[in-house]
């Protein structure tokens, strides 16, 4: 049985059926839940895809980025241009959105590599503002008025399937040689290069993949709302995505999932408080940080906890020997 599970073809089949199941399941959900909740679920999925990208940059590789919304906007606009101006199919548009965002991720990656910590944060923030101003002044994006007439091609199964796919890819990445190198960079750059890690390469990889996710999220967003304008992608948006990652627990994929659900739903759940909801949202961020400064899932290593639980008897023995 175990041997069978280790077979690559079997794993691919399992993976494909997981995706199929997701698509099927979300189609069913799509048919039964009220449109309002469906909309929330849409945005949870989209935010999750983008947050997983930022989690790779900030949570795993430790590069604080305050400009994720810029990659999102690049994905949103380029996919919209692809489907509206060039009549390309929707999914191709999404791919193009991701790729172009990713190219910008690499371009931003290069110079910002010389910067660390807060300097990097402010540089990415500056980049995001420049991108936003640029979109406000471009003809093809229809400037500040906004890009109209995008087809609402995004469907719930598509969002969910891409979200699950992203989760899987991220889990795999984190458990690979590349992922370990990225984690090492977060922990200590000097020690990383001393063991032979080309820190530049992996930082750029993280930016490229993270930006790709943001671009895909942006493309899905554009084809959900059917109308985008530069103000959709301001600093506030970058902060929203960052809060998801930090609140969930930096570097933790389950944390990011929880963060995406909580923070996307929170403003909606707080809607009965309508006038007070943003006030409460702000307070919520402060309170969560004070009581769980490493995020909701911070310091909780699921895999390790699981492994621990299973190895318990052996562990105890080892402890007694000392």
């Amino acid at each position, binding site marked *: 049985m175990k041997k069978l599970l280790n077979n690559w073809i079997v794993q691919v089949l399992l993976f494909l059926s997981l995706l199929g199941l997701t698509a099927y399941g979300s189609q069913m959900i799509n048919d039964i839940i009220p449109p309002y909740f469906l909309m929330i679920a849409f945005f949870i999925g989209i935010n999750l895809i983008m947050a997983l990208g930022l989690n790779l940059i900030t949570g795993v590789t430790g590069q604080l980025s305050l400009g994720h919304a810029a990659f999102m906007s690049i994905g949103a606009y380029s996919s919209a241009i692809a489907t509206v101006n060039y009549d390309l199919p929707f999914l191709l548009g999404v791919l193009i959105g991701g790729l172009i965002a990713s190219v910008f991720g690499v371009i931003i990656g290069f110079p910002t590599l010389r910067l660390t910590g807060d300097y990097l944060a402010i540089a990415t923030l*500056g980049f995001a*503002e420049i991108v936003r101003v640029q979109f406000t*002044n471009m003809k093809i994006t229809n400037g500040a008025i906004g890009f109209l007439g995008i087809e609402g091609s995004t469907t719930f199964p598509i969002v969910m399937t891409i979200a699950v796919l992203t989760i899987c890819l991220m889990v795999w990445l984190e458990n690979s040689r590349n992922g370990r190198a990225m984690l090492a960079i977060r922990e200590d750059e000097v020690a990383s290069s001393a063991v032979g890690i080309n820190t530049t390469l992996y930082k750029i990889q993280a930016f490229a993949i993270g930006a790709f996710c943001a671009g895909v999220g942006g493309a899905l967003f554009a084809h959900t709302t059917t109308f985008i304008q530069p103000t959709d992608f301001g600093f506030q948006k970058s902060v929203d995505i960052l809060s998801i990652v930090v609140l969930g627990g930096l570097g933790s994929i389950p944390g990011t999932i929880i963060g995406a659900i909580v923070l996307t739903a929170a403003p909606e759940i707080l809607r009965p408080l309508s006038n007070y909801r*943003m006030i409460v949202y*702000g307070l919520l961020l402060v309170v969560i940080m004070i009581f769980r400064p490493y995020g909701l899932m911070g310091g909780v290593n699921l895999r390790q906890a699981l492994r621990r639980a299973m190895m318990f008897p052996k562990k105890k023995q080892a402890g007694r020997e000392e």
Partner: protein
Amino acid sequence: MPILNNLMQQLVNGLALGSIYALIALGYTMVYGIIGMINFAYGEIFMFGAYAGLVLALTNYVNVYVALLGATFITMVLGVVIERVAYRPLRRSSRLSALISAIGVSFFLSSLMVRVKGPNTRGFPTLFENRIFEIGDFQITIYQIVIIGVAGLLMLSLHLFVTYSKMGRAMRACAQDQDAASLMGVNIDRVISVTFAIGSGLAGAAGVLAGIYFNAVQPYMGLLAGLKAFAAAVLGGIGSIPGAMIGGLVIGLTEILGVTVNLSEYKDAFAFAILILVLLFKPSGIMGRKANKKV
């Protein structure tokens, strides 16, 4: 020489705008220098200052200096309270949690203001007659004189305070090495509180000045102003007080210059473009000392 005159004119305009940025930037820089944290809520403290000034000006028909002092005092208290409640518990955790907490505070303050005062832009009552002086071919308004004057005065007193007072010395000691300062008997908590009070007070004063200058106050005005001021702080070399002043002036001047050369749509991008260039070519900023990497 019209070009020269025009340049002088823009210089004056840029100086006034830059003074406002510089005042906010000082808060960023002081807090960063001491606890190494970006206080993202500064923009909102600035906004609060503007509203405090507005309310004071409306209720009592007080003169500009009373409004200025009152707003400064209110934001000082606000700054200290914010530090106590939202940052102090996080002092030993990661930088990012403090950052998110600060962002939470900034959401809280701006949406609170929307709730209390409404989302619309409000005009500022005329606290005193604006007059225009003509010097040669260029003009300077009383408002500009007041702004540049008040900002200059505040910065000078801050400089004197930090350089010569006992508290100022304690602050500089904390910026160098908190643990050592603490061992020498410096009360770190107090120093941090004072830092927040001063920084927030300056931002509050800047808020009133901005309200008067632009005749507009709005709950979300803090965001962009805060970001630009932060850019100014980094540009000048974060942690450096003279750096923040220079950074603020440079950002103000370029913004005005951008408008002059007919690129006003891009004026908000200028601050950040300069910032990125400086970061890439002189990462420590104009006045910052180069950090020496020791292994």
